[in-house]
């Protein structure tokens, strides 16, 4: 998840619009085709071969394994359905439990655990989000590093001792984190948005906890959360790297056997439709952060491919999307604007985020609302559809280029119970979609009237927006080949 977000962020940072200005048009001829494009093979590119092996352990953990012997290393990634949506009345409980795993086991304190991993060159990492809690290990695959690293990893995940002093320290660090959030208008806007969007649903729970809840969390509650959330039946194990199948089976079996016994946690409830409206968080910043959202989809929604493609065109693809073109490229109103579906276990949000100089907030917001309304009413153009279908095919090889990429992909496939052929199926579905299908899918799930809008920034007198630059010609002179 982290690497995906990073990828999106880096993509988003650099991408730039088409908007050819009038003056340039006047002096430019149709550009000559690039030689390299003319010579480009029209076939879809291949990607690194993946043979996803899948099985279940005796205790019910689901395992996905991809052998990769090129580098003498492996990645082990555990995904438990034990995110903050399971916090109940104690926001922060999932995060605190996850953060305490490597703070102590029977015969080792936090320092001894870290010294052992680091002395082996092994990397331990953990994190908690809304749907899931992650625990990961990256290690060299040679026996003398692999076996002691795995032995300690097993112990840390299955028999953490939750020392009292560590609990206090982590609690204090989380409280310090909440203090830091007060200086972050983007975070303040996001907290307000999830609260308004999800009401009583567990997705409204702030993963980092609250000033009220963190002091109430005690060792018994953490133990109980671990007992249920970190049960073998609630786990997906992803393994990628320099391991034989028999070794992978052994790693999964041993790990699963020492975890608490228990089933997968019950499905999350369905969220209620939120009330559309506008909310303001007062903050003395130069920019206003604007978030607008409505309920989107589950990860398993049959419209997933159509909505992915529809959103890529609207504001998901960075450069060249309708939102980036109009708001950044033609008017210079922002460093970046982005829209996204966040498909989750229960319906996650569809959201649009942008930051702009406070004096331009109202104009920018009105512009975005108009762009979304038009897009939902008319759907994409055929040219937009073609371009984005080509992009998704072309980027396919990048999705599984590294062991880290593969570990992320198979973790998601396992966690959301998707078929092993998911990546191929998705790419094929994308290619088969029509303008009409994309438009209808977007209309089925989104409505321009349903947005919950949160702005975080100062109250200042508003200015009108600058005039946009002229439209670019719609011709496609360079002829990127079909595939």
């Amino acid at each position, binding site marked *: 998840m982290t690497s995906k977000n990073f990828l999106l962020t880096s993509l988003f940072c650099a991408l730039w619009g088409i908007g*050819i200005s009038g003056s340039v048009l006047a002096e430019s001829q149709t550009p000559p085709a690039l030689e390299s494009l003319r010579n480009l093979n029209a076939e879809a590119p*291949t990607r690194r071969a993946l043979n996803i092996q899948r099985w279940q352990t005796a205790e019910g953990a689901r395992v996905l394994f991809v052998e990769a012997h090129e580098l003498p290393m492996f990645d082990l990634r555990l995904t438990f359905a034990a995110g903050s949506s399971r916090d109940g009345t104690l926001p922060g409980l999932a995060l605190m439990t996850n953060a305490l795993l490597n703070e102590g086991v029977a015969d080792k304190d936090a320092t001894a655990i870290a010294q052992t991993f680091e002395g082996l060159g092994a990397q331990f990492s953990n994190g908690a989000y809304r749907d899931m809690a992650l625990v990961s290990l990256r290690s060299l695959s040679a026996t003398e590093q692999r076996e002691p690293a795995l032995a300690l990893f097993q112990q840390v995940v299955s028999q953490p001792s939750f020392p009292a002093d560590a609990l206090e*320290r982590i609690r204090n660090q989380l409280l310090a984190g909440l203090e830091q959030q007060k*200086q972050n208008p983007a975070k303040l806007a996001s907290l307000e948005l999830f609260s308004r969007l999800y009401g009583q649903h567990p997705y409204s729970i702030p993963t980092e906890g609250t000033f009220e809840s963190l002091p109430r969390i005690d060792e018994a509650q953490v133990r109980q959360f671990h007992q249920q959330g970190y049960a073998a039946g609630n786990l997906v194990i992803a393994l990628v790297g320099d391991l034989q199948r028999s070794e992978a089976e052994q790693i999964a079996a041993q790990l699963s056997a020492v975890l608490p016994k228990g089933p997968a946690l019950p499905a999350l409830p369905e969220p209620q439709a939120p009330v559309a409206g506008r909310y303001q968080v007062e903050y*003395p910043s130069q920019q206003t952060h604007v978030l607008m959202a409505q309920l989107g989809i589950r990860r398993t929604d049959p419209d997933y491919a159509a909505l992915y493609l529809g959103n890529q065109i609207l504001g998901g693809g960075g450069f060249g999307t309708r939102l980036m073109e109009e708001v950044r490229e033609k008017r210079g*109103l922002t460093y970046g604007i982005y829209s996204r579906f966040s498909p989750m276990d229960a319906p996650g949000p569809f959201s649009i985020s942008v*930051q702009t100089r406070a004096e331009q907030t109202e104009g920018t917001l009105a512009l975005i609302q108009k762009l979304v309304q038009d897009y939902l009413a008319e759907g994409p153009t055929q040219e937009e559809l073609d371009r984005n279908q080509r992009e998704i095919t072309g980027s396919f090889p990048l999705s*599984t280029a590294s062991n880290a990429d593969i570990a992320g992909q198979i973790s998601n496939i396992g966690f959301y119970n998707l078929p092993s052929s998911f990546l191929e199926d998705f790419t094929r579905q994308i290619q088969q979609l029509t303008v009409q299908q994309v438009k209808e899918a977007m209309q089925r799930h989104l409505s321009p009237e349903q947005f919950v809008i949160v702005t975080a920034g100062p109250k200042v007198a508003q200015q009108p927006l600058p005039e946009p630059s002229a439209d670019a010609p719609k011709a496609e002179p360079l002829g990127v080949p079909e595939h």
Partner: protein
Amino acid sequence: MISVIRPITYALLMVFSLSALGDGASSQATHEFTLDNGLKVIVREDHRAPVVVSQLWYRVGSSFETSGRTGLSHLLEHMMFKGSARLGPGEASRILRELGAEENAFTSDDYTAYYQVLARDRLAVALELEADRMASLRLPTEEFVRELEVVKEERRLRTDDRPNVLAFERFKTLAYPASGYRNPTIGWMHDLDRMQVEDVQDWYQRWYAPNNATLVIVGDVTVDEVRTLTQRYFAPIPRRATPEARRPLELAEPGERRLTLEVRTQLPSLLMAFNTPSLTSTENTRAVHALRLLSALLDGGYSARLATRLERGEELVASANAGYDADTRGDSLFILTATPNVQKQRTLEEVEAGIWRELEALKTTPPSPEELARVRAQVIAELVYERDSITQQASVIGQLESIGLSWRLMDEELAAISAVTPEDIQQAARTYFTRSRLTTAHVLPLEKAAHDQ
């Protein structure tokens, strides 16, 4: 668009040679050649997946900029997406996107780099586009005017509305009294306000020549393919004289400096920096490697000294970090940052004293063999992990080359680093952790009253 901030462990990546890792992890084939126009090309083969990364590194960044024109390198980076002789504004990005490429660019104080990651059969397009904008950037005024507004929004987003980033920007002006490293890469707002398109044009003319760049390609390619492609697209670009780039040198011991900053933060924090040399600015590379090890001993993981002693042991800090970048074009800094544990009523003064205790301990007692063995184990493993990412491999090569060193240094450094003794580390601590090299800043929350102005 991105000011490169490297993780603190980064400096260690180059410390040990891949050849030290044995048969299972021998280094990928790496080739180097230079075109007649001076463009240096480095190709590293990695055939695990049919993808390739192409990075073009120009040897210019914000430390080259003069007073009144800060932010120029970064602004030029933005304008490089605004069209060339053959392509309109944004068109190259549109083509790359349609090919499924991931592209980006970043500016730092020493260099500006542009990259594309894409399916192997599309590499030619990335190179043709990159060559085109090296040869014929267009810089339309109307695009410049709008893009300048985008950059100002970027500054508001990433600096002005982020109190700790803003504080660090101020801090650097004091820590670097003599060199261009004091310039913020994004530029001062008052310099952005008076920037002209002619400034950007001039900067481009001055520095964006093939003989001032390095092309790094890592992935599923052969050197022959790359030779053919670079010959076709880059070789026609003529060599141009570029100004002599002087290394950003500092005063060795500028004297102790202290700064108090009140910003819109919730928690106080401490910034400390010692003026130090880098790999390029001193003959005494043994001391530089010792500084790298000092950084790892203090903050090379959760078992390192700052986390073990100050965060968990004394519970003096909520967090504390140390970092030293040896791979710069000029002199460098050894930086320490910390936030006090306010829940335990710890103050900035106590944190400052606690950090000094750790620095003094390094001067008086050499590190144990076990501690050094842990650092070494992490470095050796990192060198394997790094090879899982073609982008990371290319970045290490590109950065070394851009600061005037050879990528081959990776291989040669093993001996140097192995030669560092516990006594060398102790000596480096004594030499560099002194008041005369130190800048300290206390970053404090604004008073509540001022908050609601």
